[in-house]
Structure formats: structure tokens, C-alpha cells
């Protein structure tokens, strides 16, 4: 029974997809954090001027 290749491929896909999804989440998260920081920095300045 040498179906190791299939088992390997299935594992690859499962973990690949999960990590890819988590990775996109992290990326989006970081981007949003940067945005948030930027806005928070500019907000007080606006109200002063």
C-alpha cells in the first residue's frame, strides 16, 4: 500500500490552507493596526488646529 504520496498531499493541503488563511488574517491585522495608529496620531492634531 504505497499511497503515501496522497496522504502527504492531503496533509500539505490541509496545513497549507490553514496556515495561509491564518497568515492572511495576521497580515490584515497588522495593516489595520498601522491604520489605527496613523489615525490616532493625526486625530488630536486635527482638533487642536
Amino acid at each position, binding site marked *: 500500500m504505497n499511497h*503515501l504520496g*496522497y496522504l502527504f498531499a*492531503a496533509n500539505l493541503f*490541509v496545513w497549507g490552507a490553514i496556515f495561509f488563511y491564518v497568515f492572511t488574517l495576521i497580515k*490584515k491585522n497588522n495593516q489595520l*493596526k498601522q491604520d489605527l495608529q496613523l489615525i490616532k496620531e493625526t486625530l488630536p492634531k486635527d482638533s487642536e488646529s
Partner: protein
Amino acid sequence: MNEDNESGPPILIWFTVLMFIAAISAIFMYVPTEKTEGIIQRIMYFHIPCAWLAFFAFFIVFVCSILFLWKKDREWDIYAHASAEIGVVFCSLVLITGPLWAKPVWGTWWVWDARLTSTLVLWLIYIAYLMLRMRTDAGSMRARYAAVVGIAGFLDIPIIHFSVLWWRTFHPKPKMITSEGIGTGMANEMVITLGISLFAFTLLYFLMMEQRIALEKMKDEIDRLKREKLYSN
């Protein structure tokens, strides 16, 4: 600079990691190889949890959609969106691991068997759901439309299931071991391993939900701040 104040990953992450280590070691070291199908049968421990999660996630979409239309609270819309996205990820995994399991065992990538067909249709429904969300501008309209599709989609599942089941009965069944077949003849070790795996994947679902919801809320917060900036007079 932001990483410091996160105070390390919370318990849920550690617990999920731990469960996955347990699940993987069980799958590759503890559980005995199935006699007729051989080593390939170990795919089952990924395949079934993914299918369970996809279905569970879509059920959550259904519940949250109803709650949204009822309460009109943005919170439920966020949950439905997050759950649909995660559901589609796992549903795709089912559709990928399925053929990879089928090829060596049945000798063909795809059979139009009831279970496969209904999973495919399910996947298409929720892809349409996500596309609808992508193509509608943010706001209450998007949430309401998505909720209607979320409800209509889930109610269709039983009818789809029965119709594809009857659809194939006139044709010879492919020579295979249905998952009921495996289920009945499963050894104790297999049941335990499947249980661990199911548990680990369910934890993963909640972990992903948590992250996805936090993400969406942060987006809302940014929108709120931007709005404040726009209307600061």
C-alpha cells in the same frame, strides 16, 4: 512595537496547539493502519473534522443571520461573515482531501455520489454568499442581503441532500466504503483518534472565529475614527 503589550498568546491558542500535537501524534503513531485501505485511510482524520466544521460554520451563519434580521445588531453580522469565511475554507479542504482519498481507493478522483455532490453545491452557495458581501457596499444593506442569503442557503441543505441522494439511487453505487461503513467497523483506537482530531479542529474554528471577529471589529473602529475625523466640527 505593538507586539510587546499583547502579553503573549492567550490560553486558547496554547490549548489548540496542544490538542493539535496530540491529534497529529495520534494519527501518525497511535492509530493502527486500516486493513483494506491502508495508510491512505489516515486522511479520514482530517477529512471528517473539516466536513464537520464546514457544516457547523454554516449552521452558525444561519443562526447569526436570523439573529441579525431580528435584532439588527452589527455584532451578529460580524459573526455570520466570519463564520461563512471559515466555513468556506474548511469546505474547500473537504473538497480537496476528498478526491485525494478517493483516487487511490476508488480509482477515480471524483464520483457524483450524494455526499460529494451536496458538499460541492454547499461550497458554491457560500462562495456566492461571500461574493455578495464583497460586491455590496458596507452598511446595513449588505448585512441584510447577506443574512437573507445565509438563511435561504442553509434551509436548502436538507432538500439538496435528499435530492442528490435519490438522484444517484438509480445508478450502481461505486465500490467503496461509505463513511457509515467505516464508522460501524471502527476500532476503538480509531474512534479515539477521530475524537481528538474533531476536538482539535473545533478549537481551531473558535480560535479563527475569535481572530476574524477581532479583525472586523478593528475595521469598524477605524471606520468610526475616520468618521469622527471627517465630521470633527
